[in-house]
């Protein structure tokens, strides 16, 4: 129960952060990605602000095996730098640049009732489903 409540709170706060920062707006994100045009560096400050807080939090988290609510600490094991990581990120970045949406802002814009965000999120879920299908197919082969 408290785990789900904290999850809801974190999602809510994340959504507010995206709205305050302007990053729920694809045009603002594209303004950052357009380095050859009139460049809007705002996104860099959003990342900087988030990482500033995150650095402290993860320093604490790394020293613990149990969270402050008593759940096991699940930090990703330091994985390898493989082709999947790079190719996947390339594909994601291309999609990001195409419309200015990454997953979080897509969801917030959907919550705001934007029809374009519904199209984006539906296609994104389909893409994630496609990934699962391909992975399953490869595993059984």
């Amino acid at each position, binding site marked *: 129960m408290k785990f789900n*409540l904290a*999850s*809801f709170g*974190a*999602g809510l706060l*994340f*959504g507010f952060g995206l709205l305050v*920062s302007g990053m*729920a707006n*694809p045009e603002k994100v594209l*303004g950052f*990605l357009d*380095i*050859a*045009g*009139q460049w*809007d560096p705002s996104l860099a*400050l959003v990342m900087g*602000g*988030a*990482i500033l807080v*995150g650095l*402290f*939090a993860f320093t604490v*988290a790394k020293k613990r095996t149990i*969270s402050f609510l008593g*759940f096991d600490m*699940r*930090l*990703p094991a330091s*994985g*390898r*730098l493989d082709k999947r*990581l790079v190719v*996947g*990120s*390339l*594909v*994601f*970045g*291309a999609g*990001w*640049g195409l*419309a200015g*949406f*990454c997953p979080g802002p*897509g*969801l*917030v814009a959907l*919550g705001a009732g934007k029809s*374009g*965000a519904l199209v*984006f999120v539906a*296609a*994104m879920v389909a*893409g*994630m*489903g*496609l*990934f699962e299908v391909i992975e399953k197919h490869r595993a059984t082969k």
Partner: protein
Amino acid sequence: MIEIAWENFTPWSALAGGIIIGLSAAGFILLNGRIAGISGILGGLLVPQKRDVLWRIAFLAGMLAAPLLWMMTAELPAIEIKASYPVLMVAGLLVGIGTRYGSGCTSGHGVCGLSRLSPRSLVATLTFMVAGFVTVFIIRHLMTGA
């Protein structure tokens, strides 16, 4: 040289919003011991595991509720979607499949991964940033002939 669009640059709200996002990620890892990675949280719902579904829905519901609660007290900031539906569809497909293969997006790799100084996340973040820069360059400066 890079030309900065000073009239569009919003350093204070960007920094404030970033700190709020950081607090969300911080709260999530410290309270629940999980990474606030949106693509992973959403993608995990497609292969539901026992006792691993509700918290994902709760997190996503929080994100969807944020603009609704905001609208109750204040006017929502601008959300301008200029891409056409077909483009949004292709973009969504690429983002969906790419983030799952790359094991993360701007939140999981960009915010959380860089915060925990993960080399893997640094590589991922640099890769999707460059891919984003190149894509926008092609669309805005090569395809239009401008």
